């Protein structure tokens, strides 16, 4: 702990551009005021925060891989879905939910590493398109394997948090939502600490930023990239396991809409920014919930198209997203 304290204060990072900061602050004030004014508003905000945290952690997984491998991993959602099935299987074998949860995470890590080593590494230096195609293929492969092993029919899993609802003032808050928020944000925080404070995390950042220079100081860059895939898979597994109780049922399509929201969140955040991914996810989660509540023609069928409208707007108005910055390459 002393070591940790000594390293603080945290080094100054590039702060997001100030207009963005103003928009975010205004949004926060709007939410706080709204929550104080209306119970329904507060309820929708908390629920949106929970789904948004799930989008955010999947978006963070996408960003991790994007920074290390410079591609969008289209299979991220399916990898997460597969790990949820693994947890489901463990529960079938008599594990409790949390035993299954914590057993699934290391399995996800190993699977992520294995996927990078076996499928991505051989094509990584060929071209970006080659890697993208491999991830698309992986999407289909995992989908097929899961359907073959477990069947495409609906499965049921116990909810980890029960169905209790707390009443704070007039606001009804589901225990599941609180649990989801806590678990996802905790895993994001742990990951952040890993990257910030450990030697492994530093080596991983160095490998993603400048692989050649990292190799020169003795970092085994290939392995760092593989571990990056592993950690992304763990994050995806957490997102999947938290998404499942919200969807109530388990089927192979579980993560497909969430992956799309994750894309939107990652782009909104700036694709290269881990903090941006989380903020983007939470923002989209809350925004969609509030819009669904107050704008009546946006029914649940229109949620996804509406999210993409947001995505399109971001790309048109500020292609670098909230926290991204134009990358300048020296040649």
């Amino acid at each position, binding site marked *: 702990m002393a070591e940790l304290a000594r390293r603080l204060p945290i080094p100054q990072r590039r702060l997001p551009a100030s207009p963005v900061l103003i928009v975010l602050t205004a949004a926060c004030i709007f939410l706080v005021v709204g929550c104080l004014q209306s119970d329904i508003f507060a309820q929708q905000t908390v629920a949106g925060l929970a789904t948004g945290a799930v989008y955010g952690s999947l978006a963070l997984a996408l960003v991790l891989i994007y920074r290390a491998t410079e591609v969008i991993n289209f299979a991220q959602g399916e990898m997460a879905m597969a790990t949820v099935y693994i947890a489901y299987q463990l529960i079938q074998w008599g594990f409790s939910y949390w035993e299954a949860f914590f057993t699934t995470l290391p399995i996800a890590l190993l699977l992520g590493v294995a996927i990078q080593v076996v499928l991505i590494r051989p094509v990584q230096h060929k071209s970006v398109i080659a890697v993208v195609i491999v991830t698309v293929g992986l999407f289909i492969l995992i989908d097929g394997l899961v359907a073959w092993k477990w069947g495409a029919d609906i499965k049921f899993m116990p909810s980890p948090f029960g169905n209790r609802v707390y009443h704070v003032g007039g606001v009804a808050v589901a225990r599941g939502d609180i649990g989801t928020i806590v678990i996802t944000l905790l895993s994001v925080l742990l990951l952040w600490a890993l990257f910030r404070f450990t*030697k492994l995390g530093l080596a991983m950042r160095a490998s993603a930023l400048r692989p050649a220079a990292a190799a020169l100081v003795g970092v085994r860059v290939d392995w760092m990239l593989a571990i990056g895939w592993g950690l992304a898979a763990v994050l995806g597994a957490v997102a999947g396991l938290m998404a499942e109780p919200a969807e109530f049922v388990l089927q192979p399509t579980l993560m497909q809409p969430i992956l799309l929201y994750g894309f939107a969140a990652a782009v909104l955040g700036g694709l290269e920014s881990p903090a941006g991914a989380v903020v983007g996810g939470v923002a989209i989660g809350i925004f969609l919930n509030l819009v669904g509540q107050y704008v009546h023609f946006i029914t649940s069928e229109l949620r996804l198209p509406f999210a993409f409208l947001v995505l399109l707007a971001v790309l048109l108005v500020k292609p670098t997203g909230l926290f991204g910055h134009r990358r300048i390459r020296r040649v």
Partner: protein
Amino acid sequence: MTALLELQDVHARYGPVKALHGVSLSVGEGEIVAVLGANGAGKTTTLRAVSSTVQREGDVRFRGKAIRGGPESVARLGIAHVPEGRGTFAELTVWENLRLGAYTRRGALKDDFARVGTYFPWMQDRRHQMAGTLSGGEQQMLALARAFMQRPRLLLLDEPSLGLAPLLVTEVFRIVKELNENEGMTVLVVEQNAHIALQLAHTAYVLEVGRVALSGASADLQQHESVRRSYLGY
């Protein structure tokens, strides 16, 4: 003097383009050796052949053993390569760059960091600054400090004077000399500025189109007719 590093008939290529046509040189323990030559003579490639960052053939021996594996394995042998463009991590802080320098080592870094401070006093106070916001001279010093953290037996330095004001060049070379004398660090330095390189080095090699054209003690080379004409300009 025993040879710490020995290159025997080393060839190297970038794809179809050959850059080294049989370079042989040796670096003694505790020595500073300079490699001089014009642009494209193969100076940088010589260093890259040592750190395995270029495709090479021929015999490269470090402490009598053939060097194998990629750059990360070479770093683990105790060879620090400060490449062209310095190889600092602009997006990381000074302190993180130094920690990365010590990546192959175990144990606490506090003493090392204190010793870095004796060579580069300004670094202590600015350890949380992003490396990319340092001046060119400071980045070169950071690259040196990062290499120092690795505690290498051999330091490969690529054009430390590049892009620096004359005063800073003198400063950088003074520190390299100190590292050599106080820490017993062996240095193989590639340099276009033959004048300052010959002042620093004990021995020097002159490369011309991928071959060693001349070699000898720095003092002798300074007197050598063709070196004076081609590289020293008098």
